[in-house]
């Protein structure tokens, strides 16, 4: 079965990509399978300068999910381009860069640099990281800020721009509209929900940062709802994510209105999960009587 999809002008072999922050810069997972099998790779967030992130512990398990507060640790955009991108260049799959920052200027600077790099085929604008004190989620919860930021980044980048939305909002369609008006070429949704867990032994939060982002199957129903809501309002391509673990989940996300999907937390559960989902997808589609991805997209819940 032909699994290829057109995602805002980019041709992907299949609609499956690892989610930003859950796959590093790809190297570790290249031990498990050939990254060229992936529809795309989304690399870890890049900021203007290197960041050390939050104190540890940075992760905790929750029912059917996990909390993380990595805090955008990364070597900075220059080192990423120098040290990480060359490795990825050897694979036949489009690379998405995830752009983060504390200020509009930082976002713009990072986006500009990455968009000029030949290895990077698209940008994902992370306006939804709940784990940093500055920037991040503010841009993702205020439609005006989201609009300004998207516009500013759009002006310095010619690569397709996907804006990654935060689910920690009263009305996600408002944010989606704002970034669409600002010129976004697509949407990524959802990022994590802000959560917390308390260690009863120490009587302190399990995550040193106190709160962290909730991901994994626990949030899948929220992701499906939000994608469906946004799909009713826009034709922009959507990269859907939030708890995907199986090919069945992928079909559910596509039915909700996603054009492609990203797999995050499940990579920790099974480092081969992206490849296994790609291998199983044709069988799963047949099980639900779809003869092609196009046919599925036509019946997507609307």
């Amino acid at each position, binding site marked *: 079965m032909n699994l290829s999809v057109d995602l805002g002008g980019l041709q992907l072999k299949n609609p499956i990509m690892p989610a930003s922050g859950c796959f590093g810069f790809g190297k570790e997972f290249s031990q498990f399978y050939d990254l060229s099998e992936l529809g795309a790779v989304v690399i870890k967030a890049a900021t203007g300068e290197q960041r*050390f992130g939050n104190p540890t512990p940075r992760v905790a398990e929750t029912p059917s999910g996990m909390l993380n507060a990595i805090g955008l640790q990364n070597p900075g955009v220059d080192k990423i381009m120098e040290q990480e991108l060359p490795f990825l260049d050897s694979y036949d799959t489009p690379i998405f860069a995830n752009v983060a920052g504390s200020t509009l200027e930082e976002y713009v600077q990072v986006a500009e640099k990455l968009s000029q790099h030949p290895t990077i085929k698209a940008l994902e604008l992370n306006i939804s990281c709940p784990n940093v004190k500055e920037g991040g989620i503010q841009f993702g919860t205020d439609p005006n800020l989201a609009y300004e930021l998207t516009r500013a980044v759009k002006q310095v980048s010619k690569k397709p721009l996907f804006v990654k939305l935060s689910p920690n909002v009263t009305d996600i369609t408002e944010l989606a509209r704002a970034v669409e008006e600002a010129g976004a070429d697509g949407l990524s949704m959802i990022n994590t929900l802000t959560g917390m867990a308390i260690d009863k032994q120490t009587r302190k939060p399990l995550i040193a940062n106190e709160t962290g982002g909730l991901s994994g199957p626990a949030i899948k129903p929220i992701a499906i709802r939000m994608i469906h809501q946004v799909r009713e309002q826009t034709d922009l391509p959507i990269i859907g994510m939030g708890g995907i*673990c199986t090919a069945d989940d992928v079909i559910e996300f596509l039915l909700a209105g996603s054009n492609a999907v990203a797999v995050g937390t499940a990579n920790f559960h099974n*480092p081969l999960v992206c490849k296994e989902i790609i291998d199983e997808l044709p069988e799963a589609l047949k099980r639900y009587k779809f003869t092609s991805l196009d046919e599925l997209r036509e019946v997507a819940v609307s």
Partner: protein
Amino acid sequence: MILQQDLSIVSNKVIAKDTYEMVLEGDLVQQIKRPGQFIHIKIGEGFSHMLRRPFSIADYSLETNQLVIIYKVIGEGSKWLSKQSDQSFINVLGPLGNGFEIDHLANQNVLVVGGGVGVPPLYALTKQLSQRNDVKAVLGYQSSDSVFYEEKFNKYANTTVATNDGSYGEEGFVTDVINQMQNQVDYYFACGPLIMLGAIQLQLRDTQGLLSVEERMGCGVGACFACVCEADNEKGYVKICQDGPVFHSNEVTLYESIS
């Protein structure tokens, strides 16, 4: 090479209070390079537990294709493990990390210090060290009912057991025992709670040593940055799962991070 494989449970039994020994068998064992490496175990059915649990390889044999882990029942994951029966399978990712590099050591007075569930990785280590070195082991436990593997260590090392409450062996912490032998040590190895490692690092700051460090983990393979620890290197940090869990005592600065 890191593999993800279903290993069969050869045995799974209590060896001390809340402490189990599990023997696993499968081809993944052939990939183990050194003592001190660890495995990352999938917990439960389906996707209810998204994070694997890291456990040190306590012993292994390339001949029998078996490895041993020793684990304490702490929370949901270890409780689930304790209920798995012989002949069933568990999903393992490993071997992970680099373990204890010991090829350069011969004819040395070596000290091995373990606390609680920090003891397991030292067992295979002690076996291998003892082939060419004189090994002293100091093992600390909560109290008499939590002591395990004393006799096994005794075969390969001059072993002292200490318990916090004095109910068995020496009374007090491993650091109390070490105080008395400080000058006779050429090289040391330690694994245990952060606070113990920090104390030992300070106490033996003039001696070379390797420390095995714990941290909560996500991926276990170096991709998620969950398990970093500040370090005295170019990047300013190490990833415990990938660069460790064993570090040179002057690379990671634990006694600072615990104060």
